[in-house]
């Protein structure tokens, strides 16, 4: 594995907290801490991006489907009226 050296600038407080973690033995040195933190961050971001894409794709797919339905041709007020009718009907089924 090839390694490259980089210089980074950190707030003093963050550096101090990093030192405390190293002193407590959680990381062997500062490079080890940065490598572990970056690996964790990259893994979490990757998971988040995958999840975001799946949600967006699913919502978009439902929108495409609904575009072709009668529902999409109704106005906002007409849809609210339909939902009101459903609300009352379902209320009667479950609570009346």
């Amino acid at each position: 594995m090839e390694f490259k050296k980089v210089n980074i600038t950190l707030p003093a407080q963050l550096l101090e907290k990093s030192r405390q973690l190293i002193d407590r033995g959680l990381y062997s040195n500062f490079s080890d801490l940065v490598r572990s933190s970056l690996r964790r961050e990259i893994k979490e971001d990757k998971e988040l991006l995958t999840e975001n894409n799946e949600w967006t794709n699913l919502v978009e797919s439902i929108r495409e489907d609904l575009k072709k339905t009668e529902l999409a041709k109704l106005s906002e007020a007409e849809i609210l009226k339909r939902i009101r009718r459903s609300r009352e009907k379902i209320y009667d089924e479950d609570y009346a």
Partner: protein
Amino acid sequence: MMKIMPKEIIVVLDSNELIFGLIGKEQYPKILIGNLNKLKLNCSFRINRQIVKEVLDNIPNYHHGKFFRLIDYGIIKYDSKIIDKNLLNKYSNLKLKKGDNVIAAYAESVKAKTLISENRHFLKELKTRKFKIVNAEQFLKDILK
């Protein structure tokens, strides 16, 4: 930049937000539903049995499968329980329309901070200190402040 809010603010989504957001014609519900995956970092979105049944009653049967997949995804938490009668009566006594009392009682039962709805009756007439009632536009403006 998204406003930093404490985690797990409980937000109830009314059925009209889901339906408008999924049709995608109304600007703010469209943005809201399309971005629940990002907003969930700050909010826990909830729906109940009444809300799910209303959505299913309004979208064609052959699209129900994808709607269930959306719920199964886990970004919106689904509660299947029937609302407690005492709590329901509390909101019935506030002269809410039939069924609106179920949504309001549900919001209180899960200790929601916000109920998002495009239902004007809710927005105008229900005054409660238990939770805030806003439409999608207001919710997004508040969260993006």
